[in-house]
């Protein structure tokens, strides 16, 4: 059945947005984005931060956290079914396993898209005075989608093999932590060839750096395109891992 993934996706979307925690996550995200926007806007008012930088910071938070939401949903997608004892019934459907996984992935990505939609008015609020709306929004959508697809695929791959949701979430959080840590390094640690290499290799810092170059520094997208190599590689690897995990999807995860 070629369109089974859409059936799975529709059901998962209903589960996430009508019956699940989609809105709760989005509300928490909105609170975080509001706080970030308020802080950068007030800092900007007392000249501690430039307006372009305010737009860039808010966008970076929106992209990083929005992609994280997709990861959270994906990490629970298959291991959650396993926890609830409903995976076996799903595996018994005469549907290619990749379609089951793809449907769940599509639902997880909806969190990113919703998060991006929430971020639009914040970016507009901060950037419309200096004519900086279209570039940050288009770049944010591109980079955020890249990262969200990669995170969702990674979450699905881990979820397919994990025996429980707790294990799946723990593994994903560990990987995420490893990716996020460099974003908190002091400026000194990110300069020089070693610092730049570290930033370029880390798909998250590379993606956020790309946004910074475009939005804060006003550089062109083609000029800075090399920063997207790591996120693109990450997407490829994560989607490949999810495809392999889908083919090997079993009732008890990797223990079987």
């Amino acid at each position, binding site marked *: *059945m070629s369109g089974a993934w859409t*059936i*799975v996706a529709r059901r998962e979307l209903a589960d996430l947005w009508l019956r699940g925690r989609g809105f709760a996550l989005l509300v928490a995200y909105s609170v975080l984005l509001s706080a970030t926007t308020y802080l950068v806007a007030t800092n900007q008012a007392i000249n501690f931060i430039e307006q372009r930088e305010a737009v860039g910071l808010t966008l970076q938070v929106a992209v990083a956290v929005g992609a994280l939401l997709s990861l959270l949903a994906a990490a629970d997608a298959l291991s959650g079914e396993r926890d609830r*004892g409903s995976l*076996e*019934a799903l595996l018994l459907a*005469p549907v290619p396993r990749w379609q089951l996984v793809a449907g769940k992935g599509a639902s997880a990505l909806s969190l990113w898209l919703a998060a991006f939609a929430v971020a639009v008015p914040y970016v507009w609020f901060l950037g419309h005075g200096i004519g900086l709306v279209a570039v940050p929004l288009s770049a944010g959508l591109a980079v955020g989608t890249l990262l969200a697809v990669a995170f969702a695929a990674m979450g699905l791959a881990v979820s397919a093999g994990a025996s429980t949701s707790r294990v799946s979430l723990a593994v994903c959080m560990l990987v995420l932590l490893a990716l996020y840590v460099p974003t908190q390094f002091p400026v000194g640690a990110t300069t020089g060839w070693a610092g730049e290499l570290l930033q370029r290799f880390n798909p998250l810092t590379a993606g956020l750096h790309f946004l910074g170059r475009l939005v804060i520094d006003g550089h062109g997208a083609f000029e800075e395109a090399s920063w997207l190599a790591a996120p693109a590689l990450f997407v490829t690897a994560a989607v490949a891992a999810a495809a392999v995990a889908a083919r090997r999807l079993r*009732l008890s995860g990797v223990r079987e």
Partner: protein
Amino acid sequence: MTAVEATGLTRTYGAVTAVDGLTFELEEGRVLGVLGPNGAGKTTAIRMLTTILPPSSGRFAVAGIPDGSEREIRRRIGVLPESAGYPARESGEEYLAYHARLHGRPAAEAVAAARRLLAEVGLADRESALIHTYSRGMRQRLGIARALVNDPAVVFLDEPTLGLDPQGQRDVLQMVRRLAGERGVTVLLSTHLLDEVEQVCTDVLILNHGKVAALGPVAAVVSRAAAPRSARLRTGPDRVEEAVTLLAAIHAVSAARAADGRPGEVTIELSAELAAPAAAAAVLATLVEAGVPVAEFTLEGGRLSDAFLEVVST
């Protein structure tokens, strides 16, 4: 036509062999009770036959479709897994319609099938209720309905009565009987309810330590594994001694004695040299000829539960 066929089906987990060389055939329209103590390999066997678990070795075919065509097999089977979980915040109708859609039914047809099946399993009045409001018995019935969304040729029910009260157990087993009778599907039923298996199933497969311990029609397995070797007789309390003396003297009886603490009852050990019915006939003829009244005569050891215990204890 053979509905289920397994040849040397084996599944190992490291050094542990969960199912060891399972070989059997089940004809279309039969109801096979799969029995065995905990850890005997029942669920593993069912999971292999339903394509959930790849066998370590051996071959099988379900509904005429050989292993290797997993998706084709899944199209033709219905399964109620052991300890199946259900989405708490979905209604029964949504749940069934979703699975019907996954089995290729168009949306409108899936909803119609869901309603029809809910009515069939006695949940018509709960079709819009969320599953978390269902009792355990209702969830099991919902699970059976889900197993039927694709009009399967073979249905596998793994412990469908687990955790149900006696009424719930009876409801589920009646449903199994109806399935086989009205729909004509082949059923593999794993359960611990031996008496009910005796009533519902045509055949029985007893697994022990992953191996086939007994296989065949229920009556044949019972008679082969647990031919009656003893009997109980009730007569007047004042005739017990006479009955014991008479029975001890005949060839069909190896021992007879008054039952301790039960006035009027005689315990009889039947001779192994005669078939149980012949020995029983000889006992009754001797007593009737001597004018000893017989209020009750029961052959013991002729039930599936006796066969089960005998088979799994060896």
